[in-house]
């Protein structure tokens, strides 16, 4: 595959902070024009990886190329091609939204006139035109995030890094950010997005890399990852919590009990046969089911499964 198809190439990335190995040989390739999700628990190394890819941090070992340009040796060239949305809002709280965007535009060397025009354009696009002259410290969390996103798009970057873009936002703010990301991807931008929310990766990412302890432990599309833990599941919701254990013993395969939701969930192979058997077994045992659902596994289950395996290997 010719290199220009790859927006990001990461090879053997290592970074150590004192006794903690934040990245332990991370490899990753991201094709141009796609959304790459990086999924991992807190402390898995997601932010460290993004900071290295976006020139903020030097790796101890390994190589990163963004658009075919090495981030260590040609940092300035990389900086003119990327946009970064970090975990903390990287805007000046004391200034207005418009002042922020205009300042960043000047620093991207657009010149005063174009910087002003670009600021107005982005404020309008992110629904901040009315509040553009208010100080950012008066903004809501969602507005601040949208301004931050607007700032990272000033130079029309080919590659956009989003480090946990919706952490700390309410559901409404989250939807706003998701919609903004979707509209960007339509425009051909390559997006690398880290998240702890499986739903977010599922919603936005074409490809997902699950990382834990500083390296990739699984990779693929959301569907591929879901099929990795053995296909479909059956969920049975009961009327009576007391019957959960008995119901669990009647179901086949890998069974999970969720008391809060009065639910048992089991992995299955043959959908129709499993459904028939479950209904029959429950009826014979006199257990009344409120709801029975056949479904694909969620990314949550994939994630728990993968990180549990990893812990067992490490132990």
């Amino acid at each position, binding site marked *: 595959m010719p290199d220009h198809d790859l927006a990001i190439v990461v090879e053997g990335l290592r970074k150590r902070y004192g006794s903690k190995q934040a990245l332990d040989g991370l490899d990753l390739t991201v094709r141009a024009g796609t959304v790459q999700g990086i999924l991992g628990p807190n402390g898995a190394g997601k932010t460290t990886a993004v900071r290295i890819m*976006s*020139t*903020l*941090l*030097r790796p101890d070992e390994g190589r990163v190329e963004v658009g075919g340009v090495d981030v260590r040796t040609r940092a*300035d*060239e990389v*900086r*003119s*091609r*990327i946009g*970064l949305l*970090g*975990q*903390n*809002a*990287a*805007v*000046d*709280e*004391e*200034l207005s939204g418009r*002042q922020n965007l205009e*300042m*960043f535009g*000047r*620093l*991207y*060397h*657009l010149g005063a006139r*174009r910087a002003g025009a670009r600021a107005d354009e982005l404020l309008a696009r992110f629904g901040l035109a009315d509040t553009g002259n208010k*100080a950012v410290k008066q903004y809501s969390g969602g507005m601040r995030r949208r301004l931050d996103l607007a*700032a*990272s798009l000033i*130079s*029309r*970057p*080919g590659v956009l890094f989003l480090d946990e873009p919706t952490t700390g936002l309410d559901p409404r703010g989250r939807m706003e950010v998701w919609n903004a990301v979707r509209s960007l991807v339509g425009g051909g931008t390559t997006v690398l997005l880290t998240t702890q929310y499986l739903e977010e990766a599922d919603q936005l990412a074409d490809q997902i890399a699950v990382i834990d302890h500083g390296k990739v432990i699984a990779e693929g599309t959301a569907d591929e990852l879901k099929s990795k833990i053995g296909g479909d599941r059956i969920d049975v919701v009961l009327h009576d919590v007391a019957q959960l254990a008995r119901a669990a013993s009647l179901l086949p395969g890998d069974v999970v009990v969720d008391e809060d939701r009065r639910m048992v969930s089991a992995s299955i192979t043959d959908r129709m046969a499993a459904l028939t058997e479950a209904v029959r077994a429950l009826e014979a045992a006199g257990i009344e089911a409120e709801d029975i659902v056949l479904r694909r596994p969620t990314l949550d289950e994939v994630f728990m499964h993968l990180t549990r395996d990893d812990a067992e290997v490490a132990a």
Partner: protein
Amino acid sequence: MSEATSESSGTGSRLSWAAADSWTMTRRELAHWARQPVQVVVGLVFPVMMLLMFSYLIGGGQGVAGDFKAYLLPGMLTMTMAFGLEATMLAVTQDLGKGVIDRFRSMPMNQGAVLVGRSVADMLQSVVGLVVMVAVGYAIGWRWHEGLASFLGAMGLLLLLRFAMLWVGIHLAMVAGKPELVQAVQILVWPVSFLSNAIASPESMPSWLGTIVEWNPMSATATAVRALFGNPGAGGDSWAATHAELLAVAWPVVLIAVFFPLAVKRFRDLSR
């Protein structure tokens, strides 16, 4: 695809971008002032209040011969410069905490511009602070007795001290990275300031303390400024007291020589 790659890589254009970026960063600080006029006014009024307090309320001046106001004003100007350390530290700490520095560092701008913008803005603020203090001093009866060149020389020495405090402040802020240390420094500048001849003469102190006071960089600046204004000095015949002009240049130059490279290195090491 990218709009930001219009610059050529020639040294001349790189220099002019460095200047443009530094000016953009300076304008950022000026915009902060425009948005927080109250804070700016408080910053200017505080040293004025101290000047008035020491002139009229506490007054007298320990061991100072002659007109205390004439002795006090150069001391207060020096203290104002030294207290600039806090302002610089506070601003740098806040920037580092907010993540906005990360955005600057991820942009293809001149990286030194962040620090240059900070210094230009802080120096401008200090010039305004000096002008206000001198005007108030004039209003309450302080006079300088030498020519304009001496007056400007005195201002130059004060700003040199402020410039040294600027780089000490940037370095300390980056070492600490947290507002807690700023508080510690805010408390410590008081005893350090009082351990100078800014307000009292070392002649009035036990001799071991007087020696420490005479070697305080603030004392050197205050003594040199008093001489340039033609105001009464602190007296004393030690080497430090009689070579105050030399020390008023040497101290800040040494501090800058030490802390400027350290601060720049710290800034670069943000990527470590």
